């Protein structure tokens, strides 16, 4: 059954396990944004959530590497899903 699902923008921390999203923007202090950018978190790049529970850090796959991100940080990475 085909269902129309519009794309929406949510924090990476809200992405369920196994779901992919495209990074739209990182909001936060300059140091944080710079660090994430250097680790490969740049807009337009696909990120997959491998592990996530409703508390604690999340594990994401980006540019072929597994990166653990604290929940607070993951709330600041906005991704686009669906569509």
């Amino acid at each position, binding site marked *: 059954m085909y269902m129309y699902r519009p794309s929406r923008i949510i924090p990476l921390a809200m992405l369920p396990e196994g779901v992919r999203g495209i990074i739209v923007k990182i909001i936060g202090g*300059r*140091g*944080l*944004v*710079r*660090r*994430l*950018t*250097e*680790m*490969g978190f*740049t*807009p337009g*790049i696909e990120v997959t959530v*491998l*592990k996530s*529970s409703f*508390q*604690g*850090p999340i*594990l994401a796959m980006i*540019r*072929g*590497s*597994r*990166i*653990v*991100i*604290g929940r*607070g*940080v993951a709330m600041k990475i906005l991704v686009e899903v669906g569509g």
Partner: protein
Amino acid sequence: MKIKVALIGNPNVGKSLIFNNLTGGRSHIGNWPGKTVEKKEGRCIYNGVEMEIIDLPGVYSLTAQSIDELIARDYIIEEKPDIVIDIADASNLERNLYLTLQLMELEVKLILVLNKMDIAENLGYNIDVEALSKKLGIPIVTTIATEGKGMDELKKIIAESIHREWKAKKISYGREIDELIFKFEKLIAVERQFSTKYPTRWLAIKILERDEDILKKIKKSRNLDEILKNIDESIKVLGDEPDVALAEKRYEWISSILPQVLKGIRPVTLSDMLDKVFLDKHLGIPIFLSLWWSLFRFTYDVSAPLSDLIDIFFNRLGDIVKEYISNEQLASFIADGILGGIGGVLVFLPSILFLFFGLSILEDSGYLARAAFVMDKLMYKLGLNGRSFIPILLGFGCNVPAIMATRTIKNEKDRVLTIVVNPLISCSARLPVYILIGGAVLGEYATAGVYSMYILGIVLAVSMALLFRRIIPFFKSGRTPFIMELPMYAKPILKTTVIHMWERGSLFLRKAGTIIFLGVISVWFLSTHPWGSPIEETYIAILGKILEPLFYPLGFDWRGAVALFFGFIAKEIVVGAFSIFFGFGGEGEEESLKQYIRTHKIFTPLTGYAFMAFTLTYIPCIATLGAIYRETGSWKWVLFTVTYELILAYTVAFTIVTAGHLLGFT
């Protein structure tokens, strides 16, 4: 002719293995001047060419953000190594090339090593090395460090590099940004103070990125006004996060060349499957706890008989010395001072070797990073870091290896915090004191009293961690966002494990060992001089009597104070000190010693309990102080730990006595 070679690379690329392969495992370990970050140097000779190899800290980037990055960057700029070897993980090329690009901008003589070629191949990646080398403009060597493959090629290319010149390609950031860079470059190039020291284009890029460290340095420029004006202008083009904009451009550049040099897609790997289990919501913590428990038992149970043997050996040796040397003072100095000191250092060696054997296997297999992921939620709430958990738990065995295990904590501030609260975790040497005093005065509550000491230790360690985070500026700013890469699981290599174990062991002997040795000799001197006088008249007793009024509110007399002095060598000696005072020799008389303490009212149940808490909290033993000095590289933190623990111990004991009195206990 000696070539100075610097090794650099992301964490987990196999850099230390390549370092070991090149140097044959022989290295000199020290600290970077004024830093707690470790510096490793080694030597390698190939075809008569001598190479001095420096292992730079593992970094993802070369900004001025972290100490590691600043050390690596400053070393390359200030010390100007003849050649820089950038080690990259071939199975993770995209992210690793980011650092390569930054090194290319530093205009150093750069060689790229693609390590883990076997893993890249297993993942189905096919890397066109020649094409990549052309795109970057630098030579590339492929290696499989775990099998020693490619090492000869690497040595050869380093040795031949003195006769070759090459220049890495310039990365274009697009016309608009390139023009901005050029503007700054022109301004700097005319000033010799900059142009002789820095690559001008790199400096221009850093100014454009508004790098904190570089902005401080260009304050001396004659063209400062012009530079600042240009910075303001650049904001219009790049927005207020120019460094982020440039980082994105670098990744764009990498993404543009990657399809031309790299073929294949990443399949689901064994690592993915293992992570499903090890990082599982429900299984993760039980798996971690059982692995930690194995490590704990391995470290202390396997080493215990060896430590006992060393102890017995030095005691026997001491007895023999006393038998054959007629001058009693000299005999005592050699037997109790020197041999006691050496023995006191060596008894720790087995547990340190075994700990690092086990820890190295956990780390090299990739599990330790997972443990940090699993434990982070809990440890974060306690003001610590996910990686603090293992050192804290190891403290229940002995604080010395526990403090040395903090090496796995990457963040300096988190590491120092974990070190300074570690002595509060009740190590096994404190147990005999609890058993003696608790058994003597607490009656049927003895067991509960002993257990409560362990709980008290944890509560104090956590409260202090939270307190220091809040009130001490050094720790306050230290909470960096938690971002960490999980390496792929890998089979640990025995050679690496053994080298690692030996490095830690010899470091302990050299650095902490001297401090322990000198400490034992000074306490020997204080407790035996003036020579021939009974214990009540030795210097240590005089000191104890001077301090007695201080301990009066806690209900300890001078003997308690002196016993605590002895506890400075090793906490279990507190028990021995009491048996000397009351004229009990040897072991097996513990029951009568308890009896004596009870009947002579040395301690009441209340003051006895306060004494136990005091023993738990007051200063760390000499060996632990030696380990703190070795791991933080500064006397400041040793002094800090001693001071806060003394204050804390007094406060805790005083609170127990006062609250006890108010509640009607005696």
